[in-house]
């Protein structure tokens, strides 16, 4: 059975499945690094997405050239959790979004997919725009 994690944003908890078949090395490092707690802020360039701010190093060897990123992806679906290696951060897509910066879309590694209903979680995420940084936790699901 796939490893599962819990993702908590200001009291709202959803369950996600690690995408081990897609990004096995990064997921293995991530699993070993949990629990992870931080304050997240809303994306400024990426749409309906928020991201962590305390670097977490999940660098793996043998990623796809030229960026040396495992399973590089430039598109996200609602509920997708990605890892952006250069900034050592997680980002969570809660609606229409695409991981971007000033230069445009960037390659990220997909690490998990939220499997619960996103409605309440997305409401909380959207409020980051109005309320500022909030507490965020990723932990292993027992």
């Amino acid at each position, binding site marked *: 059975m796939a490893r599962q994690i819990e993702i908590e944003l200001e009291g709202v908890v959803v369950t996600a499945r690690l995408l081990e078949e897609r990004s096995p090395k990064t997921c293995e490092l991530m699993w070993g690094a949990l629990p992870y707690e931080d304050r997240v*802020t*809303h*994306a*400024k*360039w*990426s*749409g*309906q997405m928020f991201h962590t701010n305390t670097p977490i190093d999940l660098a793996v060897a043998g990623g796809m050239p030229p960026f040396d990123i495992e399973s590089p992806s430039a598109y996200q679906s609602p509920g997708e959790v990605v890892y952006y290696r250069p900034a050592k951060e997680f980002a969570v897509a809660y609606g*229409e979004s*695409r991981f*971007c910066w*000033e230069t445009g879309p960037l390659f990220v590694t997909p690490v998990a997919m939220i499997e619960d209903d996103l409605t309440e979680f997305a409401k909380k995420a959207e409020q980051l*725009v*109005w*309320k*500022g*940084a909030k507490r965020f936790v990723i932990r292993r699901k027992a």
Partner: protein
Amino acid sequence: MKTLRISFEGLTLTGRVLEDKAPKICQALWDSLPLEGSVTNVTWSGNMLRLWVNIPEPPEPENVSELQHPGDILFVPGWNGLRFVYGPAQMRGPAGAHPVPRIGRLDGDLTDFVKLAKQVEWEGAKKMALARG
């Protein structure tokens, strides 16, 4: 020249409307003053604040550009409100970059404005008021 007085959480800024380049939108803004509302950071376009106020929609876009610069004041037809650029930014959305009217400029040293604008992402919405200068 039509000038603006902008109050942003204890900071007072001056600006001007670009009435020669965007006469109809500038007039609509001018007629709506004074305005007061919340500002949040935009979610697709980078270092840009959105002031949540409502201005009567002018009939057509004017002084449209795909490039935005710090100090620019923008109006986005269809979305309304005003945008204030405080760093690298480009008006974008799910459909990509889209050109928007530049209708004003902030004047003077923007250092304190930029510092305060950067806090919005972390601290949440702040208040802004606009009046005729």
